[in-house]
């Protein structure tokens, strides 16, 4: 009974501590709770997984800014890790000026994990080129003319990975990560005009807008939000920040549900022992 009264009058700071623990604990000690892989994510995984090693490169475009990093960076890393582990060449670029640092970070992070692969041969970072849709169109006409140099200033002609890349025909698949309509521009130009396969990773809120493209076959596959990234991490067998993030999500959600249940148990169990005045506070439901 004492505990129930304590629950009823519990300082909300205890709730704060519990929430913080629920989110921090999995970050420090991953639980790897089971994750169910959906069809949309598997399609993109399959499209990349069946590519032969050391042949046509995958083009990855990092079209987001720091505000959506929590959701989008994990999926970028997961797709890059997939390519690196299978020795599929990767070209990283961005259409957003704010994406430049993020794109380079993502590539360098993954590259460090695969010291056997070398820059220029197995992967390249092309940096930001202004022009957006013009750049996307330009790749279709002439890749090297669009990117005369890479993101570090090295002339593109000196990068072996680009030797055989003339246009989209030499790109196995392009994957766009974005929190905006950028993926639609890639579909419109890279896919519709030049026939390049396009996959996308978007934020959870935007995912439902992208379904029609998936059904019409204009998108090879789709990752939506943190859960999409976690599913991809499961497929490549390398649980990363998204899996941990989903652990945190699961625990936090369950925590809140348990809190609500405990709160109600305490509320009803102590009802008879309380002063009637205490229950008479106006609350929701009454206002409707």
């Amino acid at each position: 009974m004492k505990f129930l009264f304590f629950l009823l009058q519990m300082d909300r700071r205890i709730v704060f501590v519990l929430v913080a623990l629920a989110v921090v604990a999995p970050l420090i000690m991953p639980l790897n709770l089971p994750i169910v892989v959906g069809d949309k994510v598997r399609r993109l995984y399959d499209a990349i997984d069946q590519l032969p090693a050391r042949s046509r490169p995958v083009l990855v475009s990092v079209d987001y800014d720091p505000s959506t990093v929590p959701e989008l960076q994990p999926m970028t890393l997961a797709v890059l890790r997939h390519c690196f582990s299978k020795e599929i060449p990767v070209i990283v670029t961005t259409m957003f000026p704010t994406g430049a640092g993020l794109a380079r970070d993502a590539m360098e992070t993954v590259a460090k994990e695969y010291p056997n692969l070398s820059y220029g041969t197995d992967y390249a970072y092309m940096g930001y080129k202004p022009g957006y849709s013009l750049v996307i169109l330009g790749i279709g006409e002439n890749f090297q003319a669009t990117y005369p140099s890479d993101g570090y200033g090295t002339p593109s002609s000196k990068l072996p990975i680009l030797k055989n890349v003339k246009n989209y025909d030499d790109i196995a698949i392009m994957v766009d990560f974005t929190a905006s309509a950028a993926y639609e521009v890639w579909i419109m130009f890279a896919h519709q005009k030049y026939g390049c396969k396009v996959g996308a990773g978007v934020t959870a809120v935007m995912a439902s807008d992208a379904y029609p493209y998936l059904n019409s076959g204009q998108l090879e596959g789709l990752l939506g939000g943190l859960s999409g990234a976690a599913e991809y991490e499961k497929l490549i067998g390398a649980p990363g920040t998204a899996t941990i993030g989903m652990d945190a999500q699961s625990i936090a959600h369950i925590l809140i549900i348990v809190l609500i249940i405990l709160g109600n148990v305490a509320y009803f169990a102590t009802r008879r022992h309380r002063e009637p005045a205490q229950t008479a506070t106006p609350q929701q439901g009454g206002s409707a």
Partner: protein
Amino acid sequence: MMRRQVPLLICFVAGIVMLSQNFIPPLTWVYQQALEWARIISAIALFIGLISLVRVHTMKLKRKAANYRYSYVTLFALCYMIIAGFLTKYGLFVKLHAGCDTGSAWEWIVTALEKALNFQEIFLNVQIPIQATMFSLLAFYIASAAFRAFKARTFEATLLLIAAMIVMLGRVPLGQMIPGVKEITVWILDVPNTAAKRGIMIGVGLGMASTSLKIMLGIERTYLGMKD
């Protein structure tokens, strides 16, 4: 007359013109123009905000009100951003750099000044993190609000909390493993939720349109400081 009737007349005429441009394509340019006018006016109006902010904080300093020392922080940050912003945006640092020899003491001073008055870095490393952190407080508050308020006191409150709990479960992998939860979540979101949103939306639309009309007609004029 000048003080009361003319403003109401301006409002009415502007309202009628803007209302009709919705239906008359050749008047679209009026809309474009009006948008730009509104933009210019609100840009100028920001000066009033600035004056108010400075007044409030200088007053606190003068009155030595509680926590008045923090007003120095606000005023300093304000001045800093405006000065740094104007120097950067008008390209002053670029001009200064062009004007001095490489390796000279002047160049060193200009570089130091440019680093000290960095508009963009302050924005990225002061404003953005504080904004993001304030936003993320919601993770804590959504939990404490649920714990405190979701009590099955009445029938309606019970519905609210049950719907919330099911949807919470249905959103995470752990909850989705309970059979049926995912399906019920989708149903709640697609059916009762859609119906409620639609009803609210139509009601709000009616309220908005009728209030707008009352303002145009001058029936609603509290905003001009006229009670009747």
